[in-house]
């Protein structure tokens, strides 16, 4: 029954979006972390989504497609360098390093993730209702 597969598909999307939300939270929490060297500085972390192919419709057609997080990559954007000789974390040249997290971008990311999550919850609910009605056929 195809409607059962929707639970898997929407579930995989919800778990992927949760990972994305987690990363947004991590990025925002560390947006102002200061360090004294480039190696120790937090870098913005982003998920990579990929389609999961499942052959649920027989041999030839691949219809069911969930989504998974292929991995998490660190942004290669340049770190923010600041000259602050009074700062306790400043290095010998008087510089401190701040993460390359773009707060506005992360907020937009968060909204997109939460909307997609809500969307998938609705899909799941609709599929559940349809299945319940199907079970009641002929009663």
């Amino acid at each position, binding site marked *: 029954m195809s*409607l059962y597969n929707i639970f898997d598909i929407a579930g995989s999307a919800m778990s992927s979006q949760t990972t994305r939300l987690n990363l947004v939270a991590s990025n925002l929490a560390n947006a102002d972390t200061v360090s004294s060297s480039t190696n120790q500085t937090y870098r913005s972390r982003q998920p990579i989504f990929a389609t999961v192919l499942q052959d649920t419709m027989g041999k030839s*057609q691949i219809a069911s*497609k969930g989504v998974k997080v292929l991995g998490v990559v660190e942004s290669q954007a340049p770190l923010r360098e600041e000259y602050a000789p009074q700062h306790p974390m400043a290095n010998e040249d008087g510089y401190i390093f701040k993460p390359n997290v773009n707060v506005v971008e992360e907020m937009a990311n968060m909204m997109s993730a939460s909307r997609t999550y809500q969307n998938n919850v609705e899909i799941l609910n609709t599929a559940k209702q349809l299945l319940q009605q199907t079970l009641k056929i002929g009663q």
Partner: protein
Amino acid sequence: MATTINTLFGVHEHALKFRSQRAEVLASNMANADTPGYKARDFDFKSALKQLGEPARQLKVSHAKHFSTNSSASSVSLSYRVPTSASLDGNTVDAQSEQARYAQNALDYQTSIRFLDGKISGYLSALRGE
């Protein structure tokens, strides 16, 4: 009325199957709304209906080692949606229109259920002679 048990429910039985498969495809589209490079897919209802009207073109199996052929309504081919607007990451899912299609498909599914329900209660009352 020449009714065999196979054709008792008419087209609605196949319609229900088709609708549930389409719901799956549309759910896949929406699950991949943020996946780079994903291409939205859909069934063509017209060709599905046409295929149903035609007699099943099934290959004859004359040997035990032949592959069996599947000639059910599920053999309707999936096609790719023509994107309304281009996106940088190559994704062609328009979440809003997919949502609308999913809602419409759910309603059509419920319609098929109602038709089936009506048929069943009709047959039941005919059997009981009410």
